[in-house]
């Protein structure tokens, strides 16, 4: 193997790949070849760096220079200047929006300063397709320690003491789950990794599998050792082709290195992993539904108990954990439970990965200690609200969660505080909303999702959510009444109380939490037929203020349906019968002459 003096890391996360990062990588390779430097400088496509807003990202080692928004055309300059002459390319460095100073390394950026990376420790650092790079960063060390120095009971005790809770949504203590499965007596047990990330707006599991697949494999093997299973299954979304490919490569390499298979590391422990494909069903995130799906059935949940720990896949005891949960395990073993438990709050230990998105400046994947406040996430890491607008709410927990308002900005975030605030941790989607978002429309958006994803097995979820949706539709169409608001609340509570699985039991949360925190907004819809945020199409009319209109024709040229007419330099006019209320004229007008009524 060649000894490299420099490494060029190109982000291969989904966002950056969509912005041609593969071409950037191949341009680097071609250019290095021309200089005859291919043996000295290595170019690798890594997993997600997290700072998606500024992608594609290129990092140069050993000096840690962090280039943002790199295009394939920039490659020559980086090589000629940075690699050959040792001078950083200033214009591609991150510029602090406040001080306007350039920052050349990730550590100096506000986006990274408050983050602690445990689950994402290797994402953006290693080549996920090379097991040796994982091993080089303590990889498989934890598995070795467990197999040779610790009994399964010891390991379970460590996981329990660490306080790690399930990162997929429920927050069930991981160590306890392992212990329950260990206690079930059976000739065959299974370890299942839930990689069926279904929350729209969350992509941490995918990023871990794409950026650091071995951490999940190692943790599954450790889990197998603890519960007495020799078989692992990864249930992954078929929509994640890159994650699947990297996982396959990782499983193959681990088998070649004797880290999977029979007699692992010279012990009598056997463990192998297979991949099962999900086919797009949100409810399959629920563990009993997931198990049914793996067995080839419709992914409908069943009543618990029996819990999978007693009777799961093929009727055998099965331990189901999500990707992020697993990714924490090797570090906990390596650094100890006390270290892990020192991070976070009393009942929520460690860190949590959030997919920060929506109307925020720094969209990306972040990992923060439990107990951090929303304010720190939104303003310090996230860089504040886009376009200088007003913060309105943040939605956590996806379709099962709720909205947190300004009054929660200083609440420490952990499992219990979020539930107390009427939301939940969920898998870690964090969508920031500004004052242009209508909360009724947001509730409707989530309900439409649940409606789509309800499996139809139990009545409250199947029919109740449909009725909820219809009422919300009525309200956003301006036809709602005040009675509808109390009906919404009553029906929501019935659905919560009587649905079979977690999907139905939490589906009314977006409705209830917006009703609680934004009742005035609902009231405006039903009493004055107006949408304060100006989002509900049926309640909004765009008109042009003749006094302010300069006749610049910008709106006329941008209107996609030709609804605007008028002569140059004289006031324009919107034909309401043609207007589709897309709002483009409003956005484009430089003179505030387009009015929303």
């Amino acid at each position, binding site marked *: 193997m060649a000894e490299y003096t420099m490494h060029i890391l190109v982000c291969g*996360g*989904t*966002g950056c*790949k*969509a*912005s*041609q990062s593969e071409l950037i990588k191949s341009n680097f390779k071609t250019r290095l070849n021309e200089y005859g430097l291919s043996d000295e400088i290595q170019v690798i496509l890594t997993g997600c760096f997290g700072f*998606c*807003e500024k*992608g594609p990202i290129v990092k140069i080692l050993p000096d840690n220079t962090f280039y943002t928004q790199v295009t394939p055309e920039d490659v020559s300059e980086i090589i000629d200047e940075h690699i050959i002459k040792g001078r950083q390319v200033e214009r591609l460095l991150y510029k602090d929006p406040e001080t306007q100073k350039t920052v050349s390394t990730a550590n100096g950026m506000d986006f990274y300063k408050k983050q602690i990376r445990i689950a994402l420790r290797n994402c953006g650092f290693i080549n996920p397709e090379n097991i040796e790079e994982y091993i080089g960063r303590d990889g498989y060390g934890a598995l070795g320690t467990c197999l040779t120095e610790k009994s399964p009971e010891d390991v379970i005790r460590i996981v329990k003491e660490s306080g790690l809770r399930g990162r997929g949504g429920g927050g069930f203590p991981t160590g306890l789950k392992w212990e329950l499965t260990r206690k079930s007596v059976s000739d065959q047990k299974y370890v299942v990794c839930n990689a069926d990330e*279904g*929350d*729209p*707006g*969350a*992509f941490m599991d*995918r*990023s871990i599998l794409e950026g650091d697949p071995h951490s999940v494999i190692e943790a599954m093997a450790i889990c197998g050792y603890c519960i007495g299973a020799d078989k692992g299954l990864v249930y992954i979304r*078929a*929509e994640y082709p890159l994650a699947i490919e990297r996982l396959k490569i990782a499983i193959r390499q681990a088998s070649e290195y004797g880290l999977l298979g029979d007699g692992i590391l010279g012990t009598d422990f056997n463990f192998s992993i297979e991949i*099962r*494909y*999900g*086919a*797009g*069903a*949100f409810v399959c995130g629920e563990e009993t539904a997931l198990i049914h*799906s793996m*067995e*080839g*059935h*419709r*992914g409908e949940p069943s009543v618990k108990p029996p819990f999978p720990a007693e009777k799961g896949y093929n009727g055998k005891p099965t331990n189901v954990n999500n990707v992020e949960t697993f990714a924490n395990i090797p570090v906990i073993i390596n650094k100890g439970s006390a270290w892990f438990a020192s991070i976070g709050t009393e009942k929520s230990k460690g860190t949590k990965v959030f*997919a920060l*998105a*929506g*109307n925020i400046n720094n*969209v*990306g994947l972040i990992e923060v200690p439990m107990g951090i406040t929303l304010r720190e996430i939104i303003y310090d890491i996230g860089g504040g609200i886009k376009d200088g607008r007003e913060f309105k709410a943040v*939605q956590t927990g*996806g379709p099962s969660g709720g909205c947190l308002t300004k009054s929660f900005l200083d609440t420490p975030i952990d499992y219990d505080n979020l539930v107390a605030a009427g939301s939940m941790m969920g898998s870690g*989607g964090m*969508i920031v*909303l500004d004052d242009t*978002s209508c909360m009724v429309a*947001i509730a409707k*958006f*989530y309900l439409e*999702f649940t409606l*789509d994803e309800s*499996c139809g097995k139990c009545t409250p979820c199947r029919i109740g959510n449909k009725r909820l949706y219809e009422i919300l539709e009525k309200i956003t169409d301006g036809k709602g009444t005040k009675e509808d608001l109390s009906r919404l609340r009553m029906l929501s509570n019935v659905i919560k109380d009587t649905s079979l699985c977690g999907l139905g039991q939490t589906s009314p949360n977006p409705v209830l939490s917006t009703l609680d925190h934004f009742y005035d907004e609902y009231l405006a819809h039903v009493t004055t037929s107006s949408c304060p945020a100006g989002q509900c199409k049926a309640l909004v009319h765009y008109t042009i203020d003749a006094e302010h209109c300069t006749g610049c024709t910008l709106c006329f040229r*941008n209107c*996609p*349906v030709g609804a605007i007419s008028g002569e140059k330099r004289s006031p324009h006019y919107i034909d309401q019968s043609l207007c*589709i209320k*897309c*709002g*483009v004229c409003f956005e484009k007008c430089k003179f505030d002459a387009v009015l929303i009524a």
Partner: protein
Amino acid sequence: MPGIKLSEKTIGQIKTICSDFGNQGSELINVLHQVQGKLGYLPAEVQEVIAKELNISVAKVYGVVTFYSYFTMIPLGEFPISICMGTACYVRGSEQVLAEFKRQLKVEVGQSTPDGQFSLNCLRCVGACGLAPVVMVGEKVFGRVSPQMVKNIIADYKEGTAGEAKSA
């Protein structure tokens, strides 16, 4: 939908896939993935063959196909267009983008244009939230799409110049 006559070759392909999975009913989802990968979609006639091979009822196969959003019973267009309806894209205006695609193509979600060139679908989060709103045409991802860009995206594919179009 009018009935489709499957060719002997197609039936042979389906049978091979089924036997690759040991004709096991429990492998149904894997079989469906493979068959859809080969044929592009799973019409009723194909489901009948699979049911027979795996020795399970057609109703069971149909139940599974219709349960999961990844499986489709209608052929996709030559250029399948998917609008991301994940939350991040939604709050950045994907609804307007979708409306514009519907208007331009004159189809509803889940339909194809009569010439079979385009089909329109929604999907949930492709994980490129930094580029929201996101539209996928085949494997290609278009980021920060505004309703005004829709016309050009469609035109690029119609004229066959899509390869040169900038993606983000």
